[in-house]
């Protein structure tokens, strides 16, 4: 050891190389203190720790509780002069989320200042960095597993709902457009999910941490770019994931520079093992692998369950489909299909067992809570915004593609004859994969 500091004298010698004894320069020591303070706080506040734990031990996002919540609300009201109530909701891109982000930065700066004064004789933070790195690897891996398996079992983006299939393109926001278009290309969604899972797996194993950080850097930069370009909602959080990847990569950047630019020997990683004895390190490796498998397992299990309740494997209503209203009469009077008739429906879309959408002649939609009773052949509609509103229809299905609805809506007798629209007429539904493109 070339230059052992006084504080280090009592610490066990851990590492083969001389890196351990090096005195980190002042900016590096300050930067480390800040990163340690900020990212530990961030993980606690934004719920990256809960993702690491099984259900009964989960702790909630601390940003929503005392004292962080009070600090955030006070800052919003008095520093940023926000007049309206910003609520207590989480989610990184809300006004609450941005204010919380600002508060965490300030708190981390204050901690860094005190720490730098009180601990000014410290040579380096090799020990603390080792454990921070372990923590950050698993925090990032848990997020990558969360998002990854949510795509591998294609749930995050679903195939366009029946409403989306008949809704004019321009009605969608860019964010919705991104989601439905990825949902329509299921293999791509699974591919991006696998890329995220791969990053997670590589981060779990100590030896492949650098590669895992590279893969997760690619993953998260892509997510951040999409969020920015499509104005999607988790810009701030995804930016944090990019920084997480970079911080895990930082100790290896010198080696990578040697490899990619100088074409010279890079040597082994200077990152120390967790413990002195190789037996302890073997046990640590086994624990990390098991914990990684556990993280992957709970995510996968949860997503398979979701697939059968909300995803592509969900139960479908017996009347599933896009139904064109061929004929409709209100109080006995036939309403021809005029674009300008606001009291006539154009389509009825049965997509979910508990909600049904009606499309008006001007292409806008009305959505209802619904229940279909197949035995009594009745359809009941309710409105989320009006507890007293109710509409009941009896239905008949003389043929597979024909439906008659008889009932009342808003105090009027309504009779509708509907015809099932063949979804295969839509290229987005019927297009199959082709290697050969015949020009159509």
């Amino acid at each position, binding site marked *: 050891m070339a230059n052992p500091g006084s504080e280090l004298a009592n610490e066990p010698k851990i590492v083969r190389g001389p890196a351990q004894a090096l005195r980190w320069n002042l900016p590096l020591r300050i930067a480390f203190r800040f990163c340690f303070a900020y990212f530990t706080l961030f993980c606690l506040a934004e719920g990256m720790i809960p993702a690491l734990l099984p259900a009964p031990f989960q702790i909630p996002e601390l940003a929503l509780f005392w004292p962080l919540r009070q600090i955030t609300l006070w800052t919003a009201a008095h520093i940023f002069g926000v007049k309206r109530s910003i609520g207590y909701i989480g989610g990184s*891109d809300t006004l609450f989320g*941005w204010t919380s982000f600002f508060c965490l930065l300030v708190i981390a700066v204050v901690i860094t200042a005190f720490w730098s004064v009180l601990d000014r004789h410290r040579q380096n933070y090799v020990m603390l960095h080792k454990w921070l790195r372990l923590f950050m690897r698993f925090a990032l891996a848990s997020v990558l597993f969360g998002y990854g398996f949510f795509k591998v079992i294609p749930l995050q983006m679903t195939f366009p709902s029946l409403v989306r299939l008949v809704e004019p393109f321009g009605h969608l*926001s860019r964010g919705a457009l991104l989601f439905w278009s990825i949902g329509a290309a299921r293999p791509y969604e699974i591919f991006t999910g696998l890329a995220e899972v791969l990053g997670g797996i590589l981060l779990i194993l100590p030896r492949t941490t650098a590669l895992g950080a590279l893969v997760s850097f690619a993953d998260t930069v892509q997510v951040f770019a999409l969020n*920015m370009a499509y104005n999607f909602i988790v810009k*701030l959080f995804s930016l944090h994931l990019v920084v997480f990847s970079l911080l895990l990569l930082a100790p290896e950047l010198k080696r990578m520079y040697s490899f990619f630019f100088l074409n010279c020997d890079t040597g082994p990683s200077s990152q120390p093992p967790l413990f002195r004895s190789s037996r302890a390190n073997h046990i640590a490796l086994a624990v990390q692998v098991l914990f990684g498998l556990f993280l992957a397992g709970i995510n996968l299990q949860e997503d398979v369950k979701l697939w059968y309740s909300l995803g592509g494997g969900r139960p479908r209503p017996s009347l599933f489909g896009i139904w064109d209203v061929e004929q409709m009469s209100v109080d006995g009077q036939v309403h021809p299909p005029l*674009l300008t008739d606001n009291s006539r429906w154009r389509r009825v879309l049965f997509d979910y067992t508990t909600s049904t959408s009606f499309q008006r002649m001007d292409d806008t939609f009305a959505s209802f809570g619904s229940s279909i009773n197949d035995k009594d052949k009745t359809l009941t509609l309710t409105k989320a915004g009006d507890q007293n509103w109710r509409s009941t229809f009896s239905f008949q299905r003389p043929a597979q593609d024909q439906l008659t609805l008889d009932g009342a809506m808003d105090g009027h007798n309504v009779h509708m004859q509907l015809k099932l629209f063949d979804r295969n007429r839509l290229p987005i539904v019927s297009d199959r994969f082709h290697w050969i493109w015949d020009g159509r």
Partner: protein
Amino acid sequence: MNIYFRVEAWHTYGGGRPKPSLYGIWNVEQMSIDGVTRSPLLTDYDRWRRVTFVFTTFTSFQRMDDSFAGFASTINDKDKTLSLTKAADKNWKAGFTFDRPAQDQLVLDGSMDGHKIHMQLKLFDRNKFMLVNRGFHWINEYPFQR
């Protein structure tokens, strides 16, 4: 060289291309064929629902059932005429005179397939489309993405 050609292409048919004077999505508010007014019935195949002028040499007409017919087109702003041709049928031709009494109003008079056509159109405000009007936001209060 590649950059040069791509920049040129941007100004010919990319985002920087010249736009026709009638550029926009026009809703057909009223239409008559041979003097008979046609109500906007979904089932009326012969009535147009929208006319969209997007390119200087090409114009699309949308039918009441939402399907489209595309025509090669020339707009003469001096004579106020619009002429349409079909790529598949050299002899087919349709000519209209147009009048634009207001920025968002257009009247087309002419003939198509041997029938006299009169159309009154209203410019659809594209900013009503969320895809067009929603800019970039750092702050999003609602997690729901439409």
